[in-house]
Structure formats: C-alpha cells, structure tokens
C-alpha cells in the first residue's frame, strides 16, 4: 500500500486547493443550484433519502392494499376504495390485485431499497468517510439522482395508461409480460414499466461508476484499502456488482421492449394462442428472460443487502465501543458474497424446467453463499461480545437487523435445497424469506443509519424516545406480519393469489391472514413516527457538535453539517476505523482516524493485529 501514498498525497494537496476554490464559487450559488439541482454529494444523498422515504410510504400503501384483499377478500376497502375504484364499489378487482403486488415490489425494490442504500447512504457517506471533498464526477452524481424522477414518473403513470398498472409481477416473466394482449396490465403499462426500469438502471449505473472511481482515486492520505470503514468496503463491492450485473438487465429490458413494440421474438415461442388472439410466430425462449433477469436480480439482492451489512458493522462498533470483530474476514465475506452472488441466479429457476444438472450446481453454490453470511453474523455477535453497548435507537435497530438477518438467512436454506424448493417455490415461504432480508435486515439497518448519520446531515439529533417507539412498533408489526408467512408457505399457500380461500385446503388460513394484516397496518402507521421524527428533528432537534457518537471515522471530523467541500482541515488518516477502547489511547475510548499519533508511528499501532503491514501509518 505504501506505493499508493505519493499519489494520495498529491490528491490530498489537490483537494486543499480545490477546496478553497470551491468555497469561493459555491457562496454565489442561488438557492436553486444549492439545494435543488445541486452537485454536492451531501445534498444529493439527502435528496435520495427523502425521495426514498416518500416512496417507502407509497410502496407501503400498495402493500396494505394487498394485505387488505388477503384479509378481507372482495370487501369494500375503507376510505381508499371509494376514491380509487368507485366503479367496482370500492372493491379490489383481481386485475387490480395483480397490479398492486407488482407495483409494491417494483416501488420497494427499485425506488426504495436500492436507491436508499447506494443512492442516499452511498452518496452521503462515501466522500465523507474516505476524506474526499466530493464525488469524482459531481455532475454525473446529480444526473443519477435526477434520472430517478423519470423512473418514478413512468412507474406512477403506468397506473393511468391503458387498463391500469403493470400486472406481471416485478419479475415480468414472458410471455405474460411480452405479449400485449396476455393480461389487462400487459398493455401500455408494461411498456412504461420497462422504461422506468431503464431509467433506474441509468441512475444506478451512473452512481456505481462514480462510487468506484471515487473510492479508488480519492481517498485521503493514509486511507489505505484496509483502513476503509466496512461501509465503504460494502459500497465499493456493491458498485462492482452493479456495474457488472446491471447491463444485462438493461439489455434484457430492451429485448422485451423490442418483443412488445417491434415484433421481435426473443422471448416468444411460436404457436401460442393467447386470449384467442392469432397464434404467435417466432422462435424465442421465455427461459432466456429468466436467466437474464436473474443474472441481474440475484446480485441485486446483495446490492440491496451488502451496504446495510457495512453500515451495521460501523454502527455496532461505534455503539458497542469495540473494534469490529474480524475486520478482514468481514471484508473477505462481503467479497465472497459478491463473487458467489454471480453464480447462484439459477436458484430462482429450480422449478422452471431448466436442465436438472444446473439445479444441482446452483444448489451447491447457493448453499455456499450462506457461509460468508454466517461468518458475518458470528463476527457481529463477536463485535457485541464484551462491548459496552449504548442502548439507543441506532443500536436497537442494529440488533433488529442482526436478529432478523439470522431468520432470513436460515429460511433461505430450505429454498436452496432443490427438492425442498419443489414444494416451497412460489409459496408464501419465499415471501417470508425475502421480507426478512429486505425489510427485516435492510430496512432496520436503514432506520439505524438514518438515526446515526442524521446529526451529520442536519446538525441536530433525532428524538430518542420516538425513535425507540418506532423501532418497537415496527419490530412487533414486522414479525407479526411476516413470521406467520412461513407457516402459510408450509401450508402450501401460493403467492400472488387474489383469493386463496376458494381452495378448500387454504380456507382455514383466513384468520391468520387477518391477524397478519392487522400487524401490517400497525407497522405501516408506525412509519409516520419515523417521518415525523425526521421532519421535526431537522428544525427542532437538539443541536450537536461534530462527533455526537464519539466515533472514529472521518465523517465525524468534518464540520456539522459539512459545508460544500466537506472538510475544513484536509484529513490525514493514521489508523484503522475501529480503534475503540484501545489501551494505547487512554485519553478516551475512541481514537479518531485523523488524530495524529503522539509518541511516534511505531508505538501507536503495536496492539493492532487486524491491519498487519498496513498499520505503519502514513509517510
């Protein structure tokens, strides 16, 4: 790593010059350029955060629509029903039900989870945590945010074109999606869906290129790769995943668009008679879509999880006042998950009729991807072990993350086992599993992350009591909603049924679904606590200094909130990010990365075993 230092040094010098320059220019910016069409990574990050929080409420409302139908099938929906579909007497039609779950998943995945992690936290944290003054390509960064809006526009507009929203699930399997007359939602709405997907794809791609460049080139002097916080490692590896997987999905999306609009037949075989329409011609293969789609969308599962893992590692270490247990194994685990993540996509297709030999190989690789996840879990437990935790909102959300991640990870093993998956494929068991990962893990980490970085973003703290209440209600509501889904899956209830109770073997599950819906409503309304706390605290929260959590990483060395250009003193990094409670630093139980060593470079990292040869400090 020492070879990097001269270059880093010169970059650091460059920063200082640009920094001064930057200030002079940015003082003259109008409100519009400063807060709306800003190229400042922090403003863009906050824009992403607020947008995704709003979209979280939209996606949640769609989910409550789904839950309403499952608990009270064909009964009038209170308030909303009369407004949205008066012609059906306020009742959800089966067509609209398919649109509800399609758009719930699409909004939550493409407009909430992916952008909140990479967009909001990636943007906000990367330059601050590596000691850069901004992203490598600030304008590209702004574009990455502004490409979200056409995507949101297309998704929302899709409800109002043709016969209503897209209805072939978020996986949009052909031929249901590729043939316009296959379903009411497969008309113009599906085209809009594909265009929205393309826009979010552009957005992610611009972000990932930017993150990669920034992390590789713009680290502060002394910030060697193995001194990067795990959040940055996770963001870095996520960006690699996005850069390599996303083009496949974008290409597949265009192929489906061409099938629909230009009469190509990538995914449509010949001779299908759909809805008594003339037979299709062509020689396409629907399984091709599944392969291309999951080649992106399985790595995307990790795009939706890895940054959360990194953030939790940072927050846990800070809140437990203890170094991350096994820093390097944590880094290697993230890398292993990302690497294996590219060769497990077939486990979504175990029942699809692909070659059975593929089922076997994909099962083994899928089982093996549980291994780095297990290593990470044990290391988080190790981080908490012997720590002195502060039981605040951030810590509780991290514990929630950990507890839920264990459930989500373990339930995945059932479906990784091909024979067992024959039964569980497309039942509620899988719905339980991915909600434990995407909501139980990722969103709890996000809630923790919002509370953790909020003071840096706005210079004020969020309310602790409301934060804890929000965590408590969300945790109860979440488990009440999703834990019983495991049982629904074991009972054989398939997904995406507007009315499962017409089948005698599912009739007795109605009361359970009603209980789950009550929990879901509780959980949905609990999110107003988060929004309220967020909005209130921006203006009225207690003010805080630079480092309210007494954390080590670089963002806490910057002024609060950081100005355009970030650091008043260009940071120099002397040690790893997790030197909490170090016996070599008796003054305080944290030892910021930027604090210069007092007794010379040899002594200060003597007890440091995790950093090995890199612990020698800057030259």
């Amino acid at each position, binding site marked *: 790593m020492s070879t990097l230092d001269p270059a880093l040094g010169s970059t650091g010098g460059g920063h200082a010059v640009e920094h001064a320059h930057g200030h002079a220019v940015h003082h003259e910016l109008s409100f519009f350029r400063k807060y709306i069409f800003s190229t400042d990574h922090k403003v863009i990050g906050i824009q992403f955060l607020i947008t995704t929080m709003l979209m979280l409420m939209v996606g949640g409302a769609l989910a409550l629509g789904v839950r309403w139908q499952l608990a009270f099938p064909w009964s009038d929906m209170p308030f909303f029903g009369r407004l949205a579909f008066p012609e059906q007497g306020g009742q959800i039609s089966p067509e609209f039900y398919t649109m509800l779950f399609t758009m719930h998943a699409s909004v939550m995945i493409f407009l909430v989870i992916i952008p909140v992690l990479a967009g909001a936290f990636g943007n906000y944290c990367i330059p601050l945590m590596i000691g850069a003054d901004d992203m490598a390509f600030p304008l590209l960064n702004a574009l990455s945010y502004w490409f979200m809006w056409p995507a949101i526009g297309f998704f929302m507009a899709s409800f109002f074109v043709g016969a209503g929203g897209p209805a072939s699930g978020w996986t949009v399997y052909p031929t249901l999606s590729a043939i316009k007359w296959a379903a009411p939602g497969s008309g113009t709405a599906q085209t809009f869906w594909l265009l929205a997907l393309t826009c979010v794809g552009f957005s992610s791609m611009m972000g990932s290129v930017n993150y990669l460049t920034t992390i590789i080139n713009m680290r502060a002097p002394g910030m060697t790769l193995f001194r990067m916080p795990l959040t940055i490692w996770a963001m870095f590896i996520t960006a690699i995943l996005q850069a390599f997987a996303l083009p496949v999905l974008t290409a597949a999306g265009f192929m489906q668009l061409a099938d629909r609009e230009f009469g190509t037949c990538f995914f449509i075989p010949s001779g299908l008679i759909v809805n008594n329409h003339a037979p299709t011609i062509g020689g396409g293969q629907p399984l091709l879509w599944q392969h291309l789609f999951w080649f992106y969308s399985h790595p995307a599962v990790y795009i939706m999880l890895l940054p959360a893992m990194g953030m939790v590692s940072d927050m846990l270490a800070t809140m437990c006042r203890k170094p991350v247990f096994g820093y390097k194994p944590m880094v290697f685990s993230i890398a292993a998950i990302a690497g294996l993540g590219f060769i497990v996509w077939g486990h979504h297709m175990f029942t699809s009729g692909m070659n059975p030999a593929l089922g076997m190989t994909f099962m083994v690789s899928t089982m093996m991807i549980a291994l780095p996840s297990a290593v990470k879990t044990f290391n988080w437990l190790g981080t908490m072990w012997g720590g002195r935790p502060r039981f605040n909102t951030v810590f509780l959300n991290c514990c929630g993350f950990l507890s839920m991640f264990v459930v989500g990870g373990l339930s995945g*093993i059932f479906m990784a086992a091909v*024979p067992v998956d024959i039964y569980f494929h497309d039942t509620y068991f899988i719905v339980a599993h991915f909600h434990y990962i995407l909501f139980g893990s990722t969103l709890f980490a996000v809630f923790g992350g919002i509370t953790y970085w909020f003071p840096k973003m706005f210079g004020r703290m969020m309310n602790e009591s409301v934060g804890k209440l929000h965590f408590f209600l969300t945790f109860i509501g979440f488990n009440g909603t999703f834990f019983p889904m495991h049982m629904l899956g074991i009972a054989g209830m398939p997904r995406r049924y507007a009315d499962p109770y017409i089948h005698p073997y599912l009739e007795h599950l109605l009361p359970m679904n009603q209980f789950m819906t009550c929990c879901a409503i509780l959980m949905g309304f609990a999110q107003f606590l988060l929004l309220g706390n967020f909005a209130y605290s921006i203006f009225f929260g207690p003010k805080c200094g630079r480092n309210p959590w007494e954390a080590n990483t670089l963002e806490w060395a910057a002024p609060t909130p950081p100005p355009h250009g970030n650091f008043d003193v260009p940071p120099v990094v002397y040690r790893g990010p997790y030197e909490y409670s170090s016996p070599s630093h008796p003054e305080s139980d944290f030892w910021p990365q930027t604090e210069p060593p007092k007794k010379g470079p040899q002594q200060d990292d003597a007890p440091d075993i995790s950093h090995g040869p890199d612990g020698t400090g800057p030259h």
Partner: protein
Amino acid sequence: MKRLWAFFFILWPVVAITAGVISPSMHWWFPGAAQSPIGQRIDDLFYMILIIVTVVFIGTQVAMGYVLLQGARDTDAPGRAMFTHGSHALEVIWTVVPAGVLLFIAFYQLDTWAAYRVKENYPMSSRLSPVAEITARQFEWRIRYPNPKRKFESLPEVDAWLRQPAPDDLYAVNELHVPTGRAVVVHLRTADVQHAFFVPILRIKQDAVPGLVIPIIFEALKPDAYEWVCAELCGWGHYKMKARVKAEPKDDFESYLKGLEREQFDDGVSGHGTKKAAAGESKSEAAAEAPK
C-alpha cells in the same frame, strides 16, 4: 431500560419458537402427510433442515441475548469494552464448521432431486406409458390422454404423440385421473403464458413454460382427489385455476378412460352409435386384457 431491551430480544425468539411448535396442532402446517414417495422424501429433507436450522437459530439468538445481557450488566459500572480485533482460531472454526454442514445439506439432497427431475432415472415403463399431456391455459388445465388401446413402443413414438395429437386421443378439463400404485409420467405444456402444476399434498411442482414440453413423474400412494392449483403468475385469474388430480386404482382408472371414450365418440345420431364404438373397443380390450 437496557435490561428490558435485552429481554425484548430474548423474548421474540421464544415467541417464534412457540409459534413454530404449536403450528402443526393449529393446522398451520403441511396440508396433510405427503401422499407420494417423492413427497415423503421431500418432507424428510425438510425436517432434517428444520432441525439444523432450529439449532442454529436458537444458538445465535441465545448468543445474542447473552451478549446483550452482559453488555447491559457491564455498562452499569465505569470501564472500557474489551479490546480485541478478532480471533483467527474462532474465524477458522466458524468458517469450517458451517461449510461442512452446508455441504452436507447440499449433497444430501442430490439423490432426491435426481429421482424427481432426471428423465433417465424414470422407469422405462412409466416413460413409455405417459398418462396424459396437460396443456395449461388462462385459466384452466386441458388434459389429453392417449387412447387406452394405444401402446408406445419407443420414446420417439411418445415424442411424436406429444408433437401431433392423435385422432383417438381423449380429452378432459381440470380433472386429471391417474392410477395409483405406480410412477406415472405426465407431460406439461402451456398454450399461452407460464403456469405451474402444483399439487400440494403430493409436494409436486413444475412450471409450464411456453415452447417447452416438460415431463413430470409422481406416484399417488392412495386413491383420493387431490387439490391441484397454479403456482406461477399467469394473469388476473391466477388464483382460480382450481383443479384436481384424482388418483384411483388401475381398474377404476381404465374404466374412467373407457367412459371418457364412449362419451367422446358418441356420434349422437343413434343411441346405438356408442354401442358400436363400445363393441369395437370391448373386443380389443378383451385382447389386451387376455395376458392379464
């Protein structure tokens, strides 16, 4: 307060385990014991994984409860957290042990998968006597039986029959009859979009993919009518592709097919039309049944 939170994180896995334990008695469990040999093997594998997973779940949650309680206790007095960056030995242990367990789980599954999905493992007699071809469409299942008189001599003949319906094929909708007591093969295809053949009590699921004809093998252990649903989103009526698989002894199955044939080839001109066809059949049936 911090102890309360520690207990909160201990309480929820207790609730979860309790819910799991009472589930079978509340009928929040499998819709009944598996009624096919492959289903029984799947159930066994499920319970094996369930045991391993439960042990790991309890272990991790207990560990978490322990470190939380310990943390709550330690923070009562001033002092510092333990300073450690990790333990190489622990990392090796908790990498190698789960790797072994996971690989064991994976390899333990392969036989069952091969028996269910690898065509070459199906008994040749079952492959040469396909019970039916099922064509899914929005939102029903169309079933085509080969005429009971028809005997397939080779696999290419079966393929030819799948490509080209024969004039004497028998048709039905939403009710598949199969004989019990032997492994049966049905061929699944779709006329329009993707569907999936799912019979929960037999634990059988297979997607119907446009452009592909996919064989499914299963054996119903006892005569009964099993619910059969669609498990792959196929449009607004996905939930109502309600059908059943009727398993019955060989003789009942054969007489069902005969009845179907009589019904189908009744020309409706004279009441004797059916008799004539039936008479023609009974001769060949007698011939076919002679060896038995």
